């Protein structure tokens, strides 16, 4: 990923600096600034006002007020999060649901991407188009459609009943199974696309060589294709796992009232309790939970790349 480090980089020209400044500026504007706003709110206290927290840091009131406000900040909300096990259970349950869904997505997505990459060249644009096509319909509507499919009187149950496979409708809607289905369905393209990209680049001559040397196809897949597609697997899994952890719409619409996910906990904190400070603290912790493993992973990758290089 970020393996082309600047250890031997020559002096950059002004244009070069300007070029790398663009992504940093982007990160600053759309990641760091919002993050600090959320972080600041997480250190405030709840209040009956607009906005419903204090101190609000009104820039129009001069520096003195600003410094006085600064003293009001405290870590109280973070301590609160440790006092009620609801939050930890939500984090753990979200990560578990996201991990299981990511795994299922991989199981479904890999054959799909593989089939696409091995299909005749003239078909590939069409197949790619088919993967992207669902995005043309609103995400919300697609998740809603699953309600119609999964409910007790829904399409799936009626089909199974008509086929005589079951004699009682299955309760799928409003359970965790429906959440898995929703996540796998919604995020499948995010896994298929990077995986397809890495599988398509795969050097076919390696497989031919393996075949010539008497390696059976399944073994060639296991020894050559799979290892070479790992970067695609990792990129795809991250693209599924990270948004799935914080997912709100899918558990809200398809999940039951005992589906505990951090997105819903955050929603309740924000809307029912009107407690922006605590919900901001929940969001900051969620970010840490997601960012730390990713950073560690990247470091690991970089080290491995350096060792190999």
């Amino acid at each position, binding site marked *: 990923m970020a393996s082309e480090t600047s250890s031997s980089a020559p002096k950059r020209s002004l244009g070069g600096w300007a070029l790398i400044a663009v992504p940093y500026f982007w990160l600053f504007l759309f990641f760091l600034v919002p993050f600090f706003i959320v972080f600041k709110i997480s250190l405030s206290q709840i209040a*009956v006002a607009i906005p*419903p927290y204090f101190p609000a840091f009104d820039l129009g009131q001069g520096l003195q007020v600003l410094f006085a406000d600064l003293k009001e900040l405290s870590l109280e909300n973070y301590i609160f999060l440790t006092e009620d096990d609801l939050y930890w259970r939500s984090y753990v349950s979200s990560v578990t649901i996201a991990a299981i869904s990511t795994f299922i997505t991989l199981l479904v997505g890999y054959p799909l991407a593989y089939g696409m990459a091995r299909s005749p060249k003239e078909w590939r644009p069409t197949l790619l188009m088919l993967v992207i096509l669902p995005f043309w319909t609103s995400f919300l509507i697609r998740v809603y459609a699953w309600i119609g499919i999964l409910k007790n009187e829904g399409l799936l149950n009626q089909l199974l009943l008509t086929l005589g496979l079951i004699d009682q409708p299955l309760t799928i809607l409003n359970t965790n199974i429906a959440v898995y289905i929703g996540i796998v369905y919604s995020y499948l393209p995010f896994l298929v696309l990077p995986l397809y990209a890495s599988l398509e680049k795969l050097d076919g001559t390696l497989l031919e060589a393996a075949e010539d040397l008497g390696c059976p196809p399944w073994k060639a897949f296991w020894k050559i294709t799979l290892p070479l597609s790992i970067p695609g697997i990792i990129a795809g899994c991250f693209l599924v796992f990270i948004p799935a952890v914080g997912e709100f719409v899918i558990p809200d619409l398809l999940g039951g*009232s005992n589906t*505990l996910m951090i997105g819903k906990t955050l929603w309740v904190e924000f809307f029912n*309790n009107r407690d922006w400070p605590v919900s901001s603290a929940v969001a900051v912790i969620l970010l840490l939970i997601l960012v730390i493993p990713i950073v560690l992973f990247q470091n690991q990758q970089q080290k491995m790349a350096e060792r190999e290089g």
Partner: protein
Amino acid sequence: MLKSLLAGVAAVGLMASAAQAKDRVVNVFNWSDYIDESILEDFTKETGIKVVYDVFDSNEILETKLLAGGTGYDVVVPTGTFLSRQIQAGVFTELDKSKLSNLSNMWKDIEARVEKYDPGNAYSINYMWGTTGLGYNVEKVKAALGEDAPVDSWDLLFKEENISKLKDCGVHLLDAPTELIPAALNYLGMDPDSKDKGDIEKAGELLKTIRPYVQKFHSSEYINALANGDICVAVGWSGDVLQARDRAAEADNGVTVEYSIPKEGALMWFDQMAVPADAPNKDEAHEFLNYIMRPDVMAKASNYVYYANGNKASQELLNEDVIGDPAIYPSEDAVNNLYTVTAYGPRIQRTVTRTWTSVKSGQ
């Protein structure tokens, strides 16, 4: 292709902004399924003010938007309990009563009850009021519990021997802790408006005992579910249940839905129209409120949504199945049996929410 598309979008944008400069607009944010839409068309025809109408289905959503500020809405419709806290937070502008000539049509009794939330009715006018009671499918409940099923009592819901038999045909509860916790407290013989942590936890315990038999906590789905015969009991808002009753009757699907105000008492609530302090079109908002307070308009709205309104003068114009229905306009005795509640402070609100979360999640 893309270029022409962009040009098209830009042209539409320009046209919209040009139109805005000329037209008068009022942005209304109301509950879903809560008005006869022809009222909005008539208003535009009469005044030339265009109505931009948007809907929500929970007080929490509305409140969060209002507390964030800058919503761009000119008229919003919070329930009394929420309204009182929002007034404290400085969300609303005081109404200019000189612009509201139709105020004289309003019902003094309702105004007096609203004083609790909005002293002097300074910030709001009553739109609709109603109760939170039991909606049920007559045939299915009879099939499950026999002829003498206690449909006129909270026993139907809170007695395990009853609700356990209703599980299979489906029970929905409103996803509204501020209404269900008072209902549980009232059933337990405690003050429904209690702000005591221990009391609220006791209410939570009662709700947890019935949790295994509840299919869903949702504040709008039960209308269709009742009408289609998918569920047999819902704790719901009076008018919503009556809308389900009518939809079932229209569909002629063999489903009969009824609403009852349990004899132990039920929550009486008031949905109030108010104008945010940062509303961009305050004059138009006042014109809208004044129009809404016209007896014929208010009667049309109530005839459509099956909720009682706070407009005395409109009562002559109401359909008989509205004014004559004790589920909508309860008798004086029945009204005295209803209770009202006030807003929770931040600390006790947290207890209420947490209790509700553990009731819902069953943990």
